[in-house]
Structures are given as structure tokens and as C-alpha cells.
């Protein structure tokens, strides 16, 4: 498979009154064409900021993409000028956001908002764009698509709005679709519909999908690879089986332990992670997870672990003690640490 995107040592910061927020602290990874990548982490771990950095949607100031390279289709996106990056947005890389109501413009019809991108990027005329918009609404499973083109966003339900957003994102057949918690605001049965839809579209259209979420349950089903982020660092990365079955980072294990399993016995306690994520202003010098880790050693406080290969190729983890930790012992001791 060919490499679609390669991120090298990306740093994004925000300069605020209280100090510099280190939102993304040196992330490097590559994505293949047609790959489904899950990016997992809690709020404030930098998962959304890193995605916004790819599309250069960070507001500058207060934000700043301080260092790094993002290679996509043979060029560094961070070096493009404004008109260059505008041609990438929507056409080559499209994004779907968490809250479909605030991402749609309430004063334009849904049909107009979908056609707009088609006229801009594909040079279609009004009628062609409308025809295509209708096809797209059909594709994402909105019934009576032709009638719905003239509806305003408030006439759509939450699930339909998210479908319309996906239709808009797909309108220019992007090579990469970034979905930033697209189902968090939706009901469970509607969430299942949207996940099913994205899986189907990904297979049909062969695009790569980056699915950003805080829930390891959602991406287990669809992703090939998972990136786990914490405090702006990539702390574990591997294919989906390695992440769930040969977990090496104590934080990833904690995230998995926090979810109730569907076949657990009554009275099972959840393994929670004690404490809170660190403040991104003035990060600790050692491992960012030190304060909450059940397996910390003195060394962890002093020196920050780099991402290194753990066991198999492609499975990387940033933890000094990954060799000593297997899932079972960590599960036991994390259970006792609360």
C-alpha cells in the first residue's frame, strides 16, 4: 500500500494569558491510502488539535504550529500558501465535526451548502451541483433526497444533519476523511447507523478515514490501526489487535478497563485511572502519565520515554517499563491502586 500522509514531529501550541499550552508535542506517524485509523484519547489530549493542524485550521494567534512536517500527496501541507491549503481542504482532505448543528449554516438550505463545495472545487454549474448533491444525500441514506435538498438544517434530525455533513465531506471524493467525534452528540441507535454508514462508504469509495474518539469501543469495530494520545503525545500505536489484546501502555489499559465489558460478571469493579490529566501549561519533565500510573518508577519522573517498537513491527509504545508489564499484572495492580 502507498503512504497517503506522513506526519513528522508535529508541535502545536497556544499562547494564552496564563502561559503556553502545549497541545501537540512532537507527533510522528504515517497513514496508508485506504486505511482506517482510530485516534483515541480523553478531552485535552490533543487529538482534535492535531487533526485541525493537518488542515491548518488552527487560529493563529493564539495558536501556532511551531514545528513539524505534514507530507500529503508529495508536498508539505505546512509549507503551502493560503490558496494552496484551501485547495486541499474539502477536496483532498475533508472533515466532519462533532456537533452537526453548529457546523451547518442555519440560514442556507442543505442542498445549497452541499452544492457550494461542488461549484467551488469541481467547477460545476448550479444544476449539475444540485443533481450531484441529490445523489450524495441518497448515498448517505437520506430518504426523499430531492425534497430534502430544499430543507434548512433545523428541519433535519440530529442523525440526518450528521449524514448531511458526511455527504458534504464526501462531495469532492476526498482521499482522507477526518471524523472528529461525529457520533458523540447522537443517540446510540443513531450512532450505530452513522458508524455503519461510514464503514460502508469507506469500503465503496476506498478513501482513508481518521476517526477521532474518546471511546475505545467505537473504533474497535472499524479501525485497522489505533493511535492512543495523552497530553499531546502519541503514547501507543499499533494495529487494532495489538492495542486491544497485547496492550503495552498502562494508560491504554486503564482506558480499556474503564469500559464495562459486555459479558462481565455481576459485581465486577471497573478499573479506573486515578487522578486527572496533567495541565498542558508547564508539562512535567518526565513521562506525562507519571502522576496517574500504577507502574511508575523513579526513572519515569526524570526522563520522558520515546516511542519505541514493542514486540512486533508497527506496534510502538512510549513507556520505560513496557517489557515488565503484561496486561494481566497491570490489570490486577491497577485495580488495587484506586
Amino acid at each position, binding site marked *: 500500500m502507498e503512504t497517503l500522509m506522513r506526519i513528522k514531529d508535529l508541535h502545536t501550541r497556544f499562547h494564552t494569558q496564563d502561559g503556553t499550552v502545549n497541545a501537540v508535542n512532537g507527533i510522528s506517524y504515517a497513514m496508508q491510502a485506504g486505511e482506517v485509523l482510530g485516534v483515541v484519547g480523553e478531552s485535552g489530549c490533543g487529538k482534535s488539535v492535531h487533526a485541525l493542524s493537518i488542515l491548518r485550521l488552527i487560529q493563529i494567534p493564539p495558536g501556532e504550529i511551531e514545528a513539524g512536517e505534514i507530507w500529503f500527496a508529495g508536498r508539505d501541507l505546512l509549507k503551502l500558501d493560503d490558496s494552496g491549503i484551501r485547495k486541499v481542504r474539502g477536496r483532498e482532505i475533508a472533515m466532519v465535526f462533532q456537533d452537526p448543528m453548529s457546523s451547518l449554516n442555519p440560514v442556507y438550505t442543505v442542498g445549497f451548502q452541499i452544492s457550494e463545495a461542488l461549484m467551488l472545487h469541481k467547477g460545476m454549474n448550479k444544476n449539475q451541483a444540485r443533481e450531484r448533491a441529490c445523489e450524495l444525500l441518497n448515498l448517505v441514506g437520506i430518504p426523499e433526497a430531492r425534497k430534502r435538498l430544499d430543507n434548512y438544517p433545523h428541519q433535519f434530525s440530529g442523525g440526518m444533519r450528521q449524514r448531511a455533513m458526511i455527504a458534504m465531506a464526501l462531495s469532492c471524493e476526498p482521499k482522507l476523511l477526518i471524523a472528529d467525534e461525529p457520533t458523540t452528540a447522537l443517540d446510540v*441507535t443513531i450512532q*450505530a447507523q452513522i458508524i455503519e454508514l461510514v464503514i460502508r462508504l469507506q469500503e465503496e469509495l476506498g478513501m482513508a478515514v481518521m476517526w477521532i474518539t474518546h471511546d475505545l469501543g467505537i473504533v474497535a469495530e472499524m479501525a485497522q490501526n489505533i493511535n492512543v494520545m495523552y497530553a499531546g503525545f502519541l503514547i501507543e500505536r499499533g494495529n487494532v*489487535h495489538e492495542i486491544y489484546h497485547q496492550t503495552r501502555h498502562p494508560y491504554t489499559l486503564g*482506558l480499556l478497563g474503564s469500559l464495562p465489558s459486555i459479558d462481565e460478571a455481576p459485581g465486577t469493579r471497573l478499573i*479506573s485511572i486515578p487522578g*486527572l490529566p496533567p495541565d498542558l501549561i508547564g508539562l512535567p519533565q518526565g513521562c506525562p502519565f507519571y502522576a496517574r500510573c500504577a507502574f511508575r518508577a523513579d526513572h519515569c519522573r526524570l526522563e520522558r520515554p520515546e516511542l519505541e517498537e514493542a514486540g512486533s513491527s508497527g506496534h510502538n509504545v512510549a513507556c520505560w517499563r513496557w517489557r515488565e508489564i503484561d496486561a494481566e499484572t497491570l490489570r490486577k495492580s491497577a485495580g488495587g491502586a484506586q
Partner: protein
Amino acid sequence: MSAEQKSLVQVRNLKKYFPVSRQLFSTQRRFIKAVDDVSFDVLEGETLGLVGETGCGKTTVARTILQLYRPTSGQVLFDGVDLASLQENDLRKMRSRMQMIFQDPYASLNPRMTVGAIIAAPLDVHTRLDQKEKRDRVQELLKLVGLNPDFVNRYPHEFSGGQRQRIGIARALALNPDLVICDEPISSLDVSIQAQVVNLLEELQNRLGLTYIFVAHDLSMVRHISDRIIVMYLGKVMELADRNEIYLHPLHPYTRALMSAVPIPDPDKARNRKRIILKGDIPSPLNPPQGCNFNTRCPIASGRCFQEDPEYREISPEHWVACHFA
């Protein structure tokens, strides 16, 4: 469940209709039937899970039990007393025995009050403790929920979401209630913090013998914490059963769909299970479909479902369901 367990709350044919503003010159009054003929018991010391999607009436049921909404008809018996028949004063006395934890820990704490004042508020209303006794009680409560007792003089904005939820829990426990209604207490929290709060709720239940009604839209956490589970849809109870029974033998097609929509954090299991994807959206409660509520999205609906409302009946001991095909 078992005969020796006493019912703390008995809900009988509870209905709550909200009037919708009349259109000009229209003679017909319209209602949203938020809760439409719901009956169940809450046993002493159990956790009863209440699940359903947006607009299914789960929060309205919770609030009507507390008489925050007066029911349109039906009874809520708390320890044998019908709350709907009580006058304000008597009701206020009963209220100290039932408390609520709210969904949004940002909106449910007054930003201008210190944590100490927030937790002491129920004590001000219901008890005659002096300043020192109140302060001691507040500090004891803070310790109970795992916060530093020296936090009494801080304000809510100094705390994270999970810590705020702990403050909300401390406030709910201030009066030693029998019943605590948890209205989606974890849905706005991060995954690792959710587990902290759920563990805390379980610990407090064991220690204080609390009875919980746990309202949520996420079946996996409800299954984890509950003894019995009620599944609601459009104002009606679809199914009620023991947590394992509902997991192993779900009878209602809606319960099955909800169950299959729960994300499984295991790639092999997640890829091998069969998902039931429901078509379409939840109908508006203003225009519920004729016949069975669920017929617009039900994969097995046929003739009868579009005319007759299915009877809510006990299919096997302690397993209730409202479906023609169960």
C-alpha cells in the same frame, strides 16, 4: 426480584402530559405524552437502570417520581405514601429522603456559591444544625466522596468535571436519603473519569445502603451498575427485567437493537457480532404512531402492530415486555 425485598417506590399507571401551545383559532388541545402509563417498582437497596434514547421520557419519569413535575394521573408511592396527594409542606419533608444527581456538573452547581455552601444548602432547608455542625457534616461528606475536606471555601470553577460531579453527589447525600436518582450522571465525563464516578457510586451504595434509579442512554454502563433494567421508548416501558435476563434473553426488538448498538471494546467480538441497525429516527412524541409505539422502526412489525397497542405483560417471572411477538 425476591419476595423478601421491599418496594421503596411503587409507580402505578403514571402519566405526564405536557400541553403544547394552542394554535390560533384551533379548538383542539394537543399534548406531548412524555410519560404514558408507566408502572414499576423500585426495590429497597437495588439499582434500577432506566435506559432509552432522547425523548423517551426517562428523565420525566425520574422528575415525576420526585414530584418536580406533578403527574397528570397515576400514583407514586414512596414508602407507602402517595406523593401526588401530599401538600407542599408534607412533600417537603418527604423530599429529604429522595435526592437527585444531575447530568451536567457545570450547570447544576451555582458558580457564586462556595462548595461548602452548595453542600450545606439541603442542610439549611431541612435541618437545624448550627454553623459548626454543618461545617463538620460538609467536611465529612467531602471526605466520603473522595475530595479534600479543605476544599469547602473553593468555588465550582476551580474543579474539573469529575470533581464537580463528586460535589453534586456529596450534596445529594447530605440528608442521608433513601433514594438517589442519578440522571445521566456520567454522560458528560471522560471515559476514565466515568469509571471513577461509577466506582464511587457503587462504593457509597454498599456503605450507606442507598437505592438508586440510574438514568442513562448508554446500555453498557447501565448494565454494569444496575440490578434490574427498564427500557423505555416514546413514553412507554418496552421491557423490564433483571440485568442478566435482559442481556441473555432480550425479548423486545428495541432492546435487542439497543444491545447490538453498544460498542464492544474488543476487535474480534465487535466484528463478529450481528448488528441490528434500526431504520430512521425516533418519531416526535407529539405524533406517536398508531398501534405499537415502535412500529415505525421495528424490524419485525406486521399488521397487528399498526393497529393494536401491545399489552405490557409479565412473560416469565419478573420479566415484563410490551410486544405482540414476545
